[in-house]
Structure formats: structure tokens, C-alpha cells
């Protein structure tokens, strides 16, 4: 009895940090509602992404590759926006002022949202910064981009071009 209790205790205590699962390709994308960074009184609802191809990108001002990714994402957003492609940038800065400074140096046209309570981050559980989730028109995650390298841009463009052809 004592031994079983000890084993159960050990499993519970040591597995707790590993319990949160990472969102992966094939999973249903979590729904979320949050404030827009540029206009905190305005709410962004992920239901607006329904029927569209979406790229949810987790970024922060302290992350170098996030800065590299922004212009590429903006170009794709402008190129495929009329075909139903949306980019949403989820900011993970602890201080809003850091995000504001970043937004002044790297201007983008797609919506950037806050995640004050870490609700979105906990739902997606990205393991790196940046991490982007390419979501199809049916709301399923199709590709996960961990980090941002020079080859990511072409890869992502090909994936977006392929997904926008799919019907909802």
C-alpha cells in the first residue's frame, strides 16, 4: 500500500510540468478572444478566422527571428489576403511598452493581439519563439513552424498557396 502511494505521488509530482501538450498538425485550433494591441478596447475574436486560412504567429520584441518573420508575414498577408488568408500576431511581451516600441520599428498591416493572461499561449503551447500555426479553412492546424529561418518564407508561401485552394 505504502509503495503504491509513493509511486503515485512520484508520478504526479514529476509529470506535472510535462502535462501540457503542444498543439500539432491535425489538431483543432483553439478558439480565443482577446484585445487588439493597437486598440486595446477593441476585441479580436478568432471566430473571424472561420472559413479562412489563418497563420497564428507567437512573437515578442526580445526575439530576433520574430523580427525577421514580420515583414515576410506581412508580404504574404498582402499577397493572399484577398484569397482568404489572415495573419494574427500574438504578442508575448511582459511589458506592453516593449511591444509598442517593436511595432513602431516593424510596421505590419495584419492584426496584432495581446495575450495578457497567457490564455492563448497556454492553449497553443508553443515550444519556441516564434512559432506559427497554419490553420486551414476548417479550423485544423496543418503546419507548425517552429522558429524562423531564411527557407521558412518560401516554405510557408507554398503551404499558404496550397491551402487557399481548398474549399471550406
Amino acid at each position, binding site marked *: 500500500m505504502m509503495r503504491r502511494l509513493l509511486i503515485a505521488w512520484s508520478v504526479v509530482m514529476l509529470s506535472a510540468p510535462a502535462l501540457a501538450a503542444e498543439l500539432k498538425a491535425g489538431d483543432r485550433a483553439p478558439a480565443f478572444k482577446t484585445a487588439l494591441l493597437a486598440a486595446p478596447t477593441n476585441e479580436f475574436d478568432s471566430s473571424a478566422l472561420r472559413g479562412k486560412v489563418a497563420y497564428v504567429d507567437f512573437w515578442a520584441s526580445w526575439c*530576433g527571428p520574430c523580427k525577421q518573420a514580420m515583414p515576410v508575414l506581412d508580404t504574404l498577408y498582402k499577397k493572399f489576403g484577398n484569397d482568404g488568408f489572415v495573419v494574427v500576431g500574438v504578442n508575448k511581451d511582459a511589458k506592453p511598452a516593449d511591444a509598442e516600441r517593436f511595432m513602431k520599428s516593424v510596421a505590419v498591416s495584419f492584426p496584432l493581439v495581446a495575450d495578457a493572461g497567457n490564455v492563448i499561449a497556454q492553449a497553443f503551447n508553443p515550444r519556441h519563439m516564434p512559432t506559427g500555426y497554419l490553420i486551414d479553412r476548417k479550423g485544423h492546424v496543418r503546419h507548425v513552424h517552429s522558429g524562423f529561418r531564411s527557407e521558412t518564407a518560401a516554405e510557408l508561401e507554398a503551404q499558404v498557396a496550397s491551402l487557399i485552394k481548398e474549399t471550406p
Partner: protein
Amino acid sequence: MKRLLLASLVLIATALGAGCANVNAWQRGHLARPDMQLAGDPLAKALNKTYAAKEAGTGSAGVGEGGCGCN
């Protein structure tokens, strides 16, 4: 008595082990601050780099940069 000692050790070890919490990727902003670096002073950093190059041994001065795990 032996069992009690063993049980106590397991309890202490697991409690301490559980204290080693993971820092999530999105929470590494504080770790990426310049004042959180092991070698925050640029001059000390340069000296360490020179020392490592002259001695043909890198890595002895700890890890540089931090935060997003991308550097």
C-alpha cells in the same frame, strides 16, 4: 525504520524535483534581458571571447544570449 527513511527520501526528492519548473518559451523575455546574461558586460564578453580563441577552448565562459533559444 528503513522503510520510513526510504519513503522520506522519495518524498523529499520528488518534491524538490517538482520544483524544477519549465520556463515556457513565451515567458523567456526576462531571461533575454542584457542584465540577465551571465556575461552582461560587453568588455568582459570580448575578453572571454579572446581568451577562448587564444586557448582554443570555447564554452568555458558559460552560455551567451538567452531567451528564445534561437541564438
